[in-house]
């Protein structure tokens, strides 16, 4: 589903966020990317979401080489990927329902279908009863779940999440992870950046550890096994 070949991302200052990084994530996998801040987790996700482009190397997502995705085609490309953000990026000028419906409206889904699918998505994150509320009136955990509902409402094959539990306490974090787990069980590929190692260990998922823009080589065999 995701494949990186020798990817380097260098910023204008000359500083490298990723240095010759290669990795791959199979279809249906649920993989965590860990590392200290500045290790390149966010950069990795940004390259996959085409918010940034690599300085060199290839990023291939669902058999599409992102290098060949023209600027004009980026919106269509992003619509195939569900994205969850640490600050959830909800729009506070409209209710929960409209926030979740936004990707469907962008995709041109008819009103009736959109209504059904939004409710289904909200149901999956147990927030169906809050569809009329403004996101600002919800708790942090609920806001993040709305963000997740918005990410999955178009039923993407791939979901990427950048520190989705960064602002949540352990209980809420576990709840969010359980939701992710359920998506994974029905075939969604997930790539989640997180620094919450104890939580990840409890879930027992594969972990890609980054350090200074490279794979962390604390256990050579394990790293080889990943590649």
């Amino acid at each position, binding site marked *: 589903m995701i494949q990186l070949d020798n990817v380097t991302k260098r910023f204008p200052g000359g500083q490298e966020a990723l240095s010759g990084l290669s990795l791959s994530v199979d279809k249906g996998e649920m993989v965590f990317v860990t590392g200290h801040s500045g290790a390149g987790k966010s950069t990795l996700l940004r390259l996959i979401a085409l918010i940034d482009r690599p300085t060199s190397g290839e990023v291939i997502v669902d058999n599409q080489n992102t290098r060949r995705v023209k600027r004009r085609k980026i*919106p269509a490309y992003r619509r195939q990927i569900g994205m969850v953000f640490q600050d959830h990026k909800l729009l506070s000028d409209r209710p929960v329902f409209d926030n979740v419906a936004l990707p469907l409206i962008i995709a041109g889904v008819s009103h009736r279908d959109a209504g059904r699918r939004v409710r289904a998505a909200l149901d999956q994150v147990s927030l169906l009863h809050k569809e009329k509320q403004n996101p600002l009136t919800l708790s942090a955990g609920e806001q993040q779940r709305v963000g997740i509902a918005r990410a999955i409402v178009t039923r993407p094959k791939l979901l990427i999440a950048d520190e989705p539990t960064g602002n949540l306490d352990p209980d809420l974090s576990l709840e969010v992870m359980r939701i992710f787990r359920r998506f994974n069980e029905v075939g969604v590929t997930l790539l989640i950046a997180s620094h919450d190692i104890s939580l990840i260990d409890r879930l027992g998922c594969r972990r890609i550890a980054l350090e200074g823009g490279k794979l962390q080589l604390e256990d050579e065999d394990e790293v080889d096994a990943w590649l």
Partner: protein
Amino acid sequence: MAVTRNADAVAPVRSSSALSIWLTRHASTSLGALGRLSRQPFASLMIIIVIGVTLALPAAINVVVKNAQSMSGSWDNALDFSVYLNMDLTVSEAEGLARLIGQRADVAAVELVTADEALLEFKQQSGFGEALNQLGDNPLPHALVVRPGPGNTSASLRLLQEEIGNLPETDLVQVDTEWVQRFHAILDIVRQAIAIGAALLGIAIVVIVGNTIRLDIENRRDEIEVTKLIGGSNAFVRRPFLWTGFWYGLLGGSFALLLVQCGLYLLREPVTRLAGLYQGNIAVATLGVTESGAIIGTAVFLGLFASWVTAARHMRRIEPR
């Protein structure tokens, strides 16, 4: 993206026609933009008033000029000029000349006033009947009253008069209506000035609406970023702003129309009074459907143009970080 998951919860997408989706989407975006305007009534009203006043000005002057034209149009006979023929011309020669001049493309009509008719009229109107009867010979020449065609400009009129004056049969061309021509020339200048002024005011509207849309875009920067982040195209994020420009134009144009109509209504009475003084051949011109449509159409075009240019410029700049 056909991952089957939770089949009861997620119903399959019903295929609707692309056109109806497109229309629904535009309808909801346009209503959304209108709703947004109504939620900031004061700011929106200011823009609408600015557009209205700015457009009402040239539109109103245009109506006044049109009035003046129709008024001077009723003085068309004032453009007639008299051609006095040589004394030795016979009636049939004068008739021939009248026919000849009447065939010119720039002449609408020629009326021959023979010396006898002129004398008779003079006798009746002047009150010198008895005295004139003492004269043995008719001292008056045959005369032609020439009415120029409607397409004449002041220059072509002058040429026409000159050419007729140069004919060997003509004695004198008498024009006592030069002031009408001057009046027309002044109207021409005013019309030109309106065109220039309207163009400048149009630019002002574009700048004002563009600037308002720009502020709106800045205020909704987060929304635009998030929308782009989850796959909204430039066209998608631009759409609400285009509708905002459309509504500004439509409402501003309607307000301009209202202002002009009010102005005409207030002018009706004094103009009617003036018309009474001029034997009633002046009527207040009203705004026809075409002109009303032109005012609103211009306003909508300017609003759309301004928002299009602004949105296109800024949307490309705002990208998710």
